[in-house]
C-alpha cells in the first residue's frame, strides 16, 4: 500500500524533524534532482545513496558533483546501467543490505519509472520488509520548451527496447487474448511503438483531465498528445486517471482489470508521471497476473526537461 502523508511547500521542508537512516536519490540532468536534497536538514539523514545512470554519466555529472559536495562524506555514488534491470536490482539491493537501515527516504522524482518499480520491489522482499520507507516526489512545474508548439515538445524519442519490468512479469494464460493499458503522457512516440509491439487485442489509453494534473500547461500538452495518439491508434477505449491522486488512478485501473481479467492477459505501461507509476505498482501487487511493461529510450531531451515545482509530496510505503 502507498498512502499519501502530506503535500507541502518545498521551502517548508527544512522544518521537518523526521530522521532517515538512508536517503536514495538519483542525479540527473534535471534540476529537480537537487530540489529535495537541498531542502532537507542534513542532520536528519545519515547516508545518501546517489544513483547515477552511466549511459551516459556526463549529462548528470554536474548535478552529481553538486550532490556530492552538498553531502560530503555521507554521500555514496552508485553507477547504474539503465538497460540492465537485474544489475540495478542487485546493486541497490546490496547497498541496502550493507547499510541495514531502519528508515529510508526514497526520492523518486528523477529515477526512470522502471527503476522506481524495481526499487519498490526490493522493499517488498522479506529481508527488507521491516524498513520504514517514505517516498517523496517533487513534481515538474513546467518544461523549458523553447517556444515550441505543443505537438513539437518532446521529452524522449526512440525506443531501445520494450520489456517487462523485473519482478512484474505477471502470468499469462494461452487461452486469453491480450489487453494493453497505457497511461499516456508526453511521450506519444514511445507509446505508439509500445502499442505496435504488443499488437494487443484490446487497448485502453488513459488521459489526465486538467483538474487531475499538477499544471494546466502540462495538462493542455498532454491532452493534445493524447488526442493525436488516439487518432493514430484508432480502435481503442479511453479512460481518465489522476497525476495527483494515486488512489483514484488505482481505482480506474482496477475497474478495467476486473472487467476484463477473465478474458484477457493484461499488460500495463505507465508512461505518465511518477505518481501514476506508483499507482501501477500498487495495482500490480494486488493483481500478480498483470504484467507491467516499460519502453526504454536512449535519448532524453535535456533541453526540454523540467524545472521543479515548489511542492513536495510524501508517501508511506507499506
Amino acid at each position, binding site marked *: 500500500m502507498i498512502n499519501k502523508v502530506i503535500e507541502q511547500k518545498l521551502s517548508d521542508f527544512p522544518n521537518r524533524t523526521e530522521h532517515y537512516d538512508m536517503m536514495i536519490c538519483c542525479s540527473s540532468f534535471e534540476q529537480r534532482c537537487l530540489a529535495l536534497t537541498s531542502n532537507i536538514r542534513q542532520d536528519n539523514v545519515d547516508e545518501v545513496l546517489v544513483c547515477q545512470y552511466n549511459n551516459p554519466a556526463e549529462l548528470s555529472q554536474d548535478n552529481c558533483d553538486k550532490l556530492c559536495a552538498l553531502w560530503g562524506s555521507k554521500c555514496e555514488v552508485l553507477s547504474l546501467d539503465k538497460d540492465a534491470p537485474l544489475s540495478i536490482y542487485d546493486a541497490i539491493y546490496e547497498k541496502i543490505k550493507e547499510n541495514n537501515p531502519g528508515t529510508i527516504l526514497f526520492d523518486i522524482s528523477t529515477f526512470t519509472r522502471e527503476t522506481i518499480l524495481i526499487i519498490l520491489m526490493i522493499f517488498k522482499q522479506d529481508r527488507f520488509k521491516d524498513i520504514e520507507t517514505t517516498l517523496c516526489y517533487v513534481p515538474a512545474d513546467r518544461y523549458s520548451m523553447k517556444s515550441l508548439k505543443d505537438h513539437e515538445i518532446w521529452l524522449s524519442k526512440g525506443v531501445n527496447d520494450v*520489456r517487462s519490468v523485473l519482478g512484474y512479469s505477471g502470468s*499469462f494464460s*494461452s487461452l486469453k487474448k491480450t489487453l494493453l493499458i497505457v497511461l499516456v503522457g508526453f511521450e506519444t512516440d514511445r507509446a505508439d511503438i509500445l502499442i505496435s509491439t504488443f499488437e494487443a487485442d484490446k487497448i485502453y489509453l488513459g488521459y489526465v483531465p486538467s483538474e487531475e494534473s499538477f499544471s494546466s500547461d502540462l495538462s493542455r500538452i498532454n491532452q493534445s498528445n493524447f488526442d493525436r495518439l488516439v487518432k493514430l491508434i484508432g480502435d481503442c477505449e479511453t479512460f481518465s486517471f489522476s497525476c495527483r491522486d494515486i488512489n483514484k488512478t488505482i481505482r480506474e485501473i482496477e475497474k478495467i482489470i476486473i472487467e476484463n481479467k477473465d478474458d484477457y492477459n493484461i499488460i500495463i505501461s505507465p508512461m505518465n508521471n511518477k505518481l501514476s507509476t506508483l499507482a501501477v505498482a500498487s495495482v500490480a501487487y494486488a493483481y500478480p497476473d498483470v504484467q507491467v511493461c516499460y519502453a526504454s529510450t536512449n535519448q532524453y531531451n535535456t533541453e526540454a526537461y523540467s524545472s521543479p515545482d515548489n511542492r513536495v509530496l510524501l508517501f508511506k510505503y507499506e
Partner: protein
Amino acid sequence: MSLNPFEIKTPESNSAEDILDLFVDVFTDFHHVKEIGHTFLNGPRGSGKSMMFRYMMPDCQMLKNKCEANQLDYFSVYVGVKKTDINNAELERFSKNANLIINEHLLSTYVIANVFGSICQTFGKVLDAYTDEISSFFKDIFVKRIRQCGYNNEIDTNCINKGGLQLFIDMINIVDGMKHSCKRYCCLAALNKDQIQPYNDALTDFVDFVEPIIVGLKRVSLFPSHKPFFILIDDAGYLNLAQTKVLNTWVSYRTTKDICIKISTQLDYKTHLTANDRSIDSPHDYSEINISTIYSSRNSIYNSRIKEIVRKRIKKYLGLDIEPEAFFPVDTKQEEEISQLQILLKEKNANPLKPYAGKDAAQRYARPEYIKELQQKHKAGAQYSYAGFDQLVAISSGIIRHFLAPAQEMFAAMESLNPNKQVNYIKPGVQDKVIKKYSDDFLHNQCEDIRKDQGYDGSNLQKADKLYNLIDSLGALFHLILVSEAKERRVFSIAISDTPDRELYDILDLCEHFGYLHRRTIGNKQGTGKNTMYVLSRILAPHFKLDPTSFAGYKFTNSETLKTALTNKNQFLKQMMTGVSNEDFIQLTLFEGESND
C-alpha cells in the same frame, strides 16, 4: 462513412472467409513456405508474413480446398511470439547457470500450450466429435509425457463427461501451469539472490515433450495422419538469445516428416547458432525466404500481386469492380505531355541504321526530360506528379505495407473532401500530396529515430548522421544524373568495386536494416567475379525527385569515393559527376546478371 479498404488489420483477427476474400496467392513467389521442411520467412513489418501464416491455417485451407482437416496436405498451428510472455528480465539471473534448460522448458511449454490453443480456436466444439480419441491422447500420451518430465501435481484423468474441447482446455491449463511455476521460480530467484532454492518442478524439452506430443496428436483422426504439422512461429525475433538458440536446435533435428517449423522474423533474428554453438545452415537445415529481396528484384511479379490485392479490397469494401489503375488514376495532363515528348524524342533520334534507336530514346529520356523541364519551371509551381497506380506500386519498393499505408491516408483524405459521397477513385492531387509526405517522412522521421536509437555515444551519433549523409548524397547523385545529359539517366543503384572498410560496411548495413538500401550482388565488369550493389529504396523517389518506374542503370564506384559521401556530399557529387554527361552508364536489363544475396 465507408470502411477504409486499405486499413491494415492484424490477420489473426480476420475470419477464414475474409482471409480468402482478401488473400492473394503469393506462394508461387515463396513456394518453400508451403513445402515440407523448416523455413525462415524474413521480411520487414508489413511485408505480408502474418497474412501468409493466417492463410495457411486449417480453417482457410479447408475452405479453399473444400475438404476436411484430415485431407489437408499439412496441418498448421499458429504460435505468435509475444514480446514479453517468456522473454522476461528475471531470466537474466540464470545467464550463467541452467540458462538453456530453463529457456527450453519455457519455450516448449509456450509452444505446446499455443498449439493446443490454436487447435481450440480453429475447431472449437467440433473437437467434441473426437472426444474418445482425444481422451486416449490425453491419458496415454499427454499425461504419460508430463509425468516423465517431472510433473507431480494431481491430474484428473477421469474423462467421463468431458468433451474433446474441454480436454484440450484442461491440457492448456496444465501446460500453462508448468510454465507459470517455472516463471514464478525464476522471479523468486531473481529477487532473492541470496537464497536461491533448488528447482523441483517439471522440465520439458523438444525431444521428450514437444515432438512426442505432436506425433501423438497426429493419431487423432481429425488431423491428417501422414502429413506434417507446420508450427508457424510468428515474430521469432522477440525470443531471447537462449530461446533463439533452443529453437535453432529444434530446427537442426530431422523431424520434418512430422513437424516442420516455419519461423517468421522481422529481420531481427538474434542468431543462427544452436545450443551447442553450432550453426544451422541453409539449405541443409532450412530454407530461407527474404520477402523484400524477392519483391524488390522482381518488379512485375510484385506489381501483379499488389494489383490483385487492391482489386480484391475495393471489391469487398466498396463493391467496385474496377481496375486499380482506374482507382488510382495518373495525372492525365502530365502523361499527355510526356507522350508528346516521347513523339518528339522518337523523331529526333530516328536512325535508319538502328531501327530501335528512336523508340529507345523516347522510352529512356522522355520522363527524365520532363522532370528536368519541370525543374526549370519550378518557380512557376510546376512539380512532377507521383500519382498513378504503377508509380505508387514502384514507390512501395516491394513492401506491401508501403503501398497500403499511404493508400489508407489517401482514402481518408478523399472521404474528408466529400464526407457524404462514396469514394470511387483517388484524385491524382491527393495521391501526389500523400505519397510525397510519406516519402519525406520515411527519410526524416526514421532518420531522426535512428539518431535517437543510436544513443548518446559520440561515435554512434556520428554513425546516424553519416547514414543520413550517405542516403542524401546518393539521392542527390541520382537526381543530378536524371536531369543530366548522360546516356543512361535512370540510375538507382551503386555497385562497389572493392571491399568497404568496417565503418562504411556498418553504415551500409544500417541503411539496409532500415530499408533505405537493398543489397544485391552483380557480376563485375571483367566477368571474373561478383561485386556488391546497393539499390536505393524507391520509397525515396518522391523525396529526391527521381523516376520510380524505370529499370535503373547503376554506377560503379570504389569504397573510398563512397566514403566521402558520409561526410562531404558536395565533394562526393563533384567526384561522381565528373564527365557524367559523356559517360556510358551501365544499364541493367530486367535484372539480368543480378543475384540475391
